[in-house]
C-alpha cells in the first residue's frame, strides 16, 4: 500500500488541544486517545478480575474453608464474572484496538461520530462505577453469578440492582460503539478501499458491530425487567408473581451467547492480521475468512438454547440448538484451517505476537472442541454445571479473547506508543503465562468429567490433587501477567524508539508514523486497483 507519512512533530500522544493533562485525555474525541482510555480502564478491571480469580483458586487449594466463607466465595465468582465479561472481554478488542486502529486501517481521520465515541467511554466508566458501588456499599455484594439467573436475582438480599443497572449502562456503551463502527466502516473508507480490500480485522469489527447492535438491546430490556420485578413486584420471571424463570434464561442467553462472538470475532480478526504479517505471505482464503466471520455472527445469534439443555426445553428445540451449535463450529474451523494454511510455506518471522497467535490457535482449538462436548445433548447432561464448563469457557474466552488481546497489544504496541518493548521479557512473560494457563484450566476438564460441580467453595477429597495443580497454575499465570504488564508499562515510557513498520505489515496503519499524528494522515490515502491489505507479492 502507499506510504503516507504524517507529520511526526504533533503525534496524538504529545498533541495539546483545548485541555491539558488528564482532561486532555478524558475529554478527547480522538479515536486513538479513546482507544487508550479503554485500554487503561480494561487493564485495570482485568487486574481486579485476576485478583478475584486468584482468591477463588486459593480458596479451592484445599477442601473446606481455606480463606473465605461460602457466601464470600459466591460473591467473589459473581464479581469476577461480571467484571471479566461485561467490563473486560465484551468491550475488549473492539473498544481498544477497534477504536485505535480501525479508522487508520480504513484510511480515515477518525470514527464517524467522535463525540458519541467519547460518550461510549463515559458510559463504560459509569457502568463500572455502578457495579463497583454494588460491591462496596449496600446490603452485600451480589452473589447470583454473573448471569443474574432468576430465582437468585429476586431472592437474594444482596445489593443486586446497582450491579444490574451497571450492566445495562455497559450495554448502552457497547451499542453506541457498534453503531459508530458500522457507520464508520460504511462511510469513511478511503478511495479505492473496497469491501474486497478491507483488512480482516475491520471485517470482524463489522460483524461484531452488528451483533452489538442487535443483541445488546435484548439484555438491556431483560435487566430492566429484573429491576421492575424487584422494585415494583411486576411478575416477569418470579413464578410466585406469575412469571417464568426460564424466560429469563432465554432472554439472557439470546444476548449473552452472541456476546461470546462479540468477544471472539475481533480476536480472530487480530489473529488474521498477525499471521500473514509474520508469515510475510498473502492470507490464505481471504473470502472464506470473511464469509466465516459473517456466518459466525449470524449463526451465533441462534444457538443460545445450548446453555439451557438441562433447564427444561422441548426435545425438538434441543435438537435444533444442538445442531446449530455444531454448525457454528464449521466457520470457526475454517478460520483455523486458513491460519495454518497461511503459515504453510511462509517466511515465518518468529516474534512475540506470533507466539501469542500460535498459542491462541492451540487453546482456541481445545476450547472449541470441548464446546462440542457441551453442545452434544447426551454429554452436556453429564458435565453441565461442572468444572468442565468452567474450563471450556476459560479456554475460549480467556484463551481466545485474552490471548488474542495480548497478541494484538504486542503486535500494535510499536504503532501505539512509538516504542518497542523488550522482546526477551515479552517472550518470557508469554511462556510463563501460557504454562500457567494450561496448568490452571486443563485439570478442570478432568475434575468436571469426574463430577466436581462449579460454583462451590468446597469439594470432595478425591478432587484435591487436580485443584492443587489448578491453583498452582493460577500463580504461574499471575507471574507471567505481572512480567508482561511491567514490561509493557516500562517500554511505553522508556523503550527504544520503534520504526514506522517494524513487522513489515501491509495494512494502512503501518504506513503512518509511530505513534500516529493527530489526524493520522497528512493526505487521505488512495488505494490502487492492484493493491490490497496482504499484498506480499
Amino acid at each position, binding site marked *: 500500500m502507499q506510504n503516507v507519512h504524517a507529520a511526526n512533530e504533533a503525534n496524538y500522544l504529545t498533541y495539546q488541544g483545548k485541555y491539558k493533562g488528564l482532561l486532555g485525555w478524558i475529554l478527547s474525541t480522538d479515536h486513538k486517545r479513546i482507544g487508550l482510555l479503554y485500554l487503561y480502564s480494561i487493564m485495570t478491571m482485568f487486574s481486579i478480575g485476576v485478583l478475584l480469580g486468584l482468591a477463588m483458586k486459593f480458596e479451592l487449594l484445599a477442601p473446606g474453608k481455606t480463606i473465605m466463607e461460602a457466601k464470600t466465595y459466591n460473591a467473589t465468582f459473581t464479581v469476577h464474572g461480571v467484571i471479566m465479561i461485561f467490563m473486560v472481554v465484551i468491550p475488549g478488542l473492539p473498544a481498544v484496538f477497534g477504536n485505535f486502529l480501525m479508522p487508520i486501517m480504513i484510511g480515515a481521520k477518525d470514527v464517524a461520530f467522535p463525540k458519541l465515541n467519547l460518550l461510549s467511554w463515559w458510559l463504560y466508566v459509569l457502568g463500572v462505577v455502578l457495579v463497583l458501588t454494588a460491591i462496596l456499599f449496600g446490603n452485600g455484594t451480589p452473589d447470583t453469578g454473573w448471569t443474574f439467573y432468576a430465582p437468585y436475582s429476586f431472592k437474594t438480599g444482596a445489593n443486586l440492582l446497582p450491579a444490574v443497572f451497571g450492566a445495562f449502562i455497559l450495554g448502552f456503551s457497547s451499542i453506541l460503539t457498534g453503531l459508530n463502527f458500522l457507520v464508520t466502516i460504511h*462511510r469513511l473508507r*478511503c478511495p479505492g478501499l473496497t469491501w*474486497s480490500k478491507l483488512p480482516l480485522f475491520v471485517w470482524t469489527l463489522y460483524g461484531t458491530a452488528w451483533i452489538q447492535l442487535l443483541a445488546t438491546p435484548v439484555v438491556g430490556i431483560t435487566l430492566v425487567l429484573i429491576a421492575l420485578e424487584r422494585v415494583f413486584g411486576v411478575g416477569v420471571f418470579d413464578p410466585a408473581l406469575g412469571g417464568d424463570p426460564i*424466560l429469563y434464561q432465554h432472554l439472557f442467553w439470546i444476548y449473552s451467547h452472541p456476546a461470546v462472538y462479540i468477544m471472539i470475532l475481533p480476536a480472530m480478526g487480530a489473529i488474521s492480521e498477525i499471521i500473514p504479517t509474520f508469515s510475510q505471505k498473502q492470507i490464505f482464503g481471504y473470502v472464506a475468512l470473511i*464469509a466465516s466471520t*459473517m456466518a459466525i455472527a449470524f449463526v451465533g445469534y441462534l444457538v443460545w438454547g445450548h446453555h439451557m439443555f438441562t433447564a427444561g426445553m*422441548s426435545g425438538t428445540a434441543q435438537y435444533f440448538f444442538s445442531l446449530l451449535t455444531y454448525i457454528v463450529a464449521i466457520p470457526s474451523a475454517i478460520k483455523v484451517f486458513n491460519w495454518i494454511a497461511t503459515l504453510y510455506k511462509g517466511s515465518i518471522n518468529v516474534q512475540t505476537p506470533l507466539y501469542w497467535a500460535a498459542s491462541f490457535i492451540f487453546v482456541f482449538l481445545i476450547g472449541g472442541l470441548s464446546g462440542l462436548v457441551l453442545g452434544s445433548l447426551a454429554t452436556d447432561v453429564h458435565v453441565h454445571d461442572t468444572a468442565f464448563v468452567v474450563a471450556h469457557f476459560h479456554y475460549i474466552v480467556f484463551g481466545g479473547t485474552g490471548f488474542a488481546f495480548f497478541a494484538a497489544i504486542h503486535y500494535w504496541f510499536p504503532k501505539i506508543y512509538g516504542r518497542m518493548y523488550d522482546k526477551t521479557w515479552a517472550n518470557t512473560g508469554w511462556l510463563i503465562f501460557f504454562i500457567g494457563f494450561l496448568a490452571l484450566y486443563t485439570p478442570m476438564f478432568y475434575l468436571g468429567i469426574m463430577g466436581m460441580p462449579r460454583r462451590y467453595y468446597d469439594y470432595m477429597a478425591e478432587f484435591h490433587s487436580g485443584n492443587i495443580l489448578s491453583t498452582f497454575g493460577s500463580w504461574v499465570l499471575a507471574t507471567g501477567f505481572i512480567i508482561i504488564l511491567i514490561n509493557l508499562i516500562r517500554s511505553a515510557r522508556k523503550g527504544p524508539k520503534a520504526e514506522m513498520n517494524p513487522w513489515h505489515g501491509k495494512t494502512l496503519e503501518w504506513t503512518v508514523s509511530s505513534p500516529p499524528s493527530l489526524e493520522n494522515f497528512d493526505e487521505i490515502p488512495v488505494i490502487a486497483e492492484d493493491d490490497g491489505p496482504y499484498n506480499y507479492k
Partner: protein
Amino acid sequence: MSDLNIDIKTKILKFNLLFVLIVFSLSLFAQEVVNPVSNNNNVEIGVIEHLDEFLPDSISLINEEGQQVWLADIIDKPSVINFVYYRCPGICSPLMEAVAGVMDKSDLVPGVDYQVLTISFDPHETIDLGIRKKSNYLNLMTNKVEEAKKGWLFFTSDSASIARATNATGFKYQRTGNDYLHAASLTVVSSEGKITRYLNGLYFLPFEWKMAIVEASKGKSGPTLNKVLRFCYSYDPVGQTYVMNITKITGTIILFLAILFLLILVFKSKKKENLI
C-alpha cells in the same frame, strides 16, 4: 477489479445464504406448544377445556325454520358456540346480552367473518322460544342488527345430540328441578370444527372477541391486520386473557430498525465531505 469485487461479494452471499437455508429448514421441525392448563375431569358444573379437539359430525340441531340440520354443515366459518336454555332465569340472559353487546361493538361482521351459534341444552325446548329470544337480543343491538340476523343463529336439539355436543366441548351442567346449574362460557371453533378457545365470564372485550375469532380463522386468509394481531398477542390460560407478546414485538422492532439502518447505509449515497 470491480469484477473481482462482485465475485467476492457473490461468494460471501452464497455462503451465508447456505447457512440461512439450513437454519430455516430446521425450523420446519419446530413443534406446537401444548396448552399447560390441565383438565380436571371431576368438575360437575363448569367447563373442562378440550382445546385442539374436533367436534363430532353427528350433532343434529333444529334451526330457526324448524328443519333438522347438522352442526358440522353449519360450521363453515369461525363460530362461537353458546350453550344456554331459553327459559333460563339465571346467567343466560346476562351472557346473551354480553354476546349481543360485543357483537355490536366488534368491527368483525357476523355472518361474514364469523357466526354465533346459540344452542339450547334443554331437549324439551322448542325453536319458537329461541326465535323470540333472538328477536329480544337483536333489539339490544344498534350497529349490526341486520348482520346479526344472519350471523347469530339459534337452535334446539335432542338429548343425544346435546350430550354429544356438550361432552365434546366439555360444558358440564346439572339439572335441578325444572332448571339447570351451568357456567357462562363460549366455545370458539374454527371452520373445520376444531375447538380453539374458550371465553368465560359475562363480559367480553371487543378485543378479546376479535382475537379469539382471528385465532380460529388461523390458516385461512384474513385481513393482514388480523395476522399482525395474532403475532402480537397470545392467550394467557392462567389470567384467561390475551397478553401482548413483548419479546416478539421488541425483537421485531429491533430487527426492523437494524434492517432499515443497513439499507440507509448501503443505499444512501455518501456525501462528498465525508470522504475525508
